[in-house]
């Protein structure tokens, strides 16, 4: 078999291992799906009436806020999925099984690609469920089928980027506890961007941060695709951020994994 066949076969084996882990660790999966749904319901039904009026749209109120907040909630789901990835990578590294993998003639990065593919599948399923709940409670996007596909594409890109970043987080930390803390800021980034309120309503310094952080262009692109708000150059910036984060995180994770495990 060639190196490429090995790479595909071994990554597939590791993916199957990850999927089994997810089924056995169902409580984590339930939490990762449940958390964004709780956020969605909380923001729409508790804060939505007031926040919607502040958006200054024609209808105002809860219905308008639901249209606004869905992309932010989706990004929360992506970030929460990242936390799960970091924890599962860190847990894996403390187990003897990974040491065994390192002494086997397998495609070396397959342990990591297995984690990434598994997390991607988990997060994309989570996003589908969260979108479904949003539709159930009255979210009415104007997106065409092509725009839906584009939305899925953009979300897949940011998921890939954050998953590789969180794989590196899981590798760089020495304990599972530390690995669960490190990605926490990612869950807050949608709040410190255009996820929940327009950046124009923020004070100067915060507004500057909110406009230039990577989540905002992603949120703006998703919002534009789903509800028809102007996208402008957000799409290009979002793609650039995703590509950049993916590349840097991949190289970082690879280097961390290739270090001697005992130093």
């Amino acid at each position, binding site marked *: 078999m060639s190196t490429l066949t090995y790479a595909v*076969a071994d990554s597939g084996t590791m993916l199957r291992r990850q999927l089994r882990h997810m089924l056995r660790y169902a409580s984590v999966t339930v939490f990762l799906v449940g958390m964004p749904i709780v956020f969605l319901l909380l923001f729409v039904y508790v804060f939505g009436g007031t926040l919607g009026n502040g958006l200054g749209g024609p209808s105002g109120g809860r219905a308008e806020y639901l249209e606004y907040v869905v992309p932010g909630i989706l990004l929360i789901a992506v970030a929460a999925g990242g936390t799960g990835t970091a924890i599962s990578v860190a847990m894996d590294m403390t187990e003897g099984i990974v040491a065994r993998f*390192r*002494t086997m003639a397998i495609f070396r990065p397959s342990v990591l690609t297995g984690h990434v593919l598994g997390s991607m599948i988990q997060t994309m399923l989570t996003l589908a469920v969260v979108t479904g709940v949003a539709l159930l409670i009255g979210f009415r996007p104007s997106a065409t089928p092509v725009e839906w596909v584009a939305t899925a594409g953009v979300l897949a890109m940011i998921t890939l980027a954050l998953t590789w970043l969180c794989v590196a987080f899981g590798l760089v930390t020495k304990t599972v506890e530390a690995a669960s803390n490190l990605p926490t800021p990612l869950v807050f980034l949608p709040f410190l961007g255009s996820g929940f309120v327009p950046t124009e309503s923020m004070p100067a310094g915060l507004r500057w941060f909110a406009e230039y952080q990577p989540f905002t262009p992603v949120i703006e692109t998703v919002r534009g695709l789903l509800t028809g708000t102007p996208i402008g150059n957000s799409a290009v910036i979002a793609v650039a951020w995703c590509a950049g984060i993916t590349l840097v995180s991949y190289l970082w994770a690879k280097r961390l994994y290739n270090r001697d495990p005992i130093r």
Partner: protein
Amino acid sequence: MTTTRSQPAIRATGLRKSFGDQVVLDGIDLQVAEGTVFALLGPNGAGKTTIVHILTTLIGADGGEVRVAGHDVARDPDQVREVIGVTGQLTAVDNLLTGEENLLLMADLRHLGRHEGRRRAAELLDRFDLAESARKPAANYSGGMKRRLDLAMGLVGDPRIIFLDEPTTGLDPRSRRTMWQIIRELVAGGVTVFLTTQYLEEADELADRIALLDHGRLVAEGTPDQLKRRIPGGHIRLQFAHPDGLEAAASTLGETVRDDEALTLQVPSDGSVKSLRGLLDRLETESIEVSELSIHTPDLDDVFLTLTGQPDKEKEPAR
């Protein structure tokens, strides 16, 4: 397999490794002939696991050359990985998977193919007495079962060289016996076994050659018999109630080690019933009153005392 009879299965020369300022391996030379069992004996912290980690390509060495099955571990790690099986000190099973899934995972990573993988997994489950628990998660296994599964996983690809890092540490005596039996069967099948242990008894039971590791250096190497000849024999320790008894016994028994303060006498003995009976008879004939008697057989402590000239500083209780 490119190895031939004339080529050792494992050869290390001038192996050195430090972690920070701490020198863990300080110039190790060793050779293991194909089809034999080599035991690396030493206390905790001697560097046994570090040697296994380097030989199994898990970590790199700072200096020296290591060849496993003729392949350089630093230059051709994948060729080495193709022919070895490793059972580590840290049990290397996936606790969330069942015993069967763990074995199938190994079969997939060895690229055995679906049918062959299933056949091999079933065979190993049977052989290691795990068939009944095959569908239970490994997390629910007992220590002995986990260790057997661990070893079985290392055997999926029919490795020619097997590394066992303290395979019986923490196991109860029965599981230990079972593990020894399994290792003997492997050797009978022609594989080379590299074993580390803290137990002299274990090395004696299994190994063709034993090397003693202390503070990152090999202090002795040879067959079990060669090493045992270098270890002082055991002794019988007699405790007396009165100095008179000690005095009488010392003059009767001849060559002994006597401690006047503790009122004890150490009489050299091979620990056999015959020698013990002889000693008791002589004490009886001379009507010497002994308040306590204990038998001491040579153990790892004696080995270290003799061969390093000092007790190991960071030594932990051997059992």
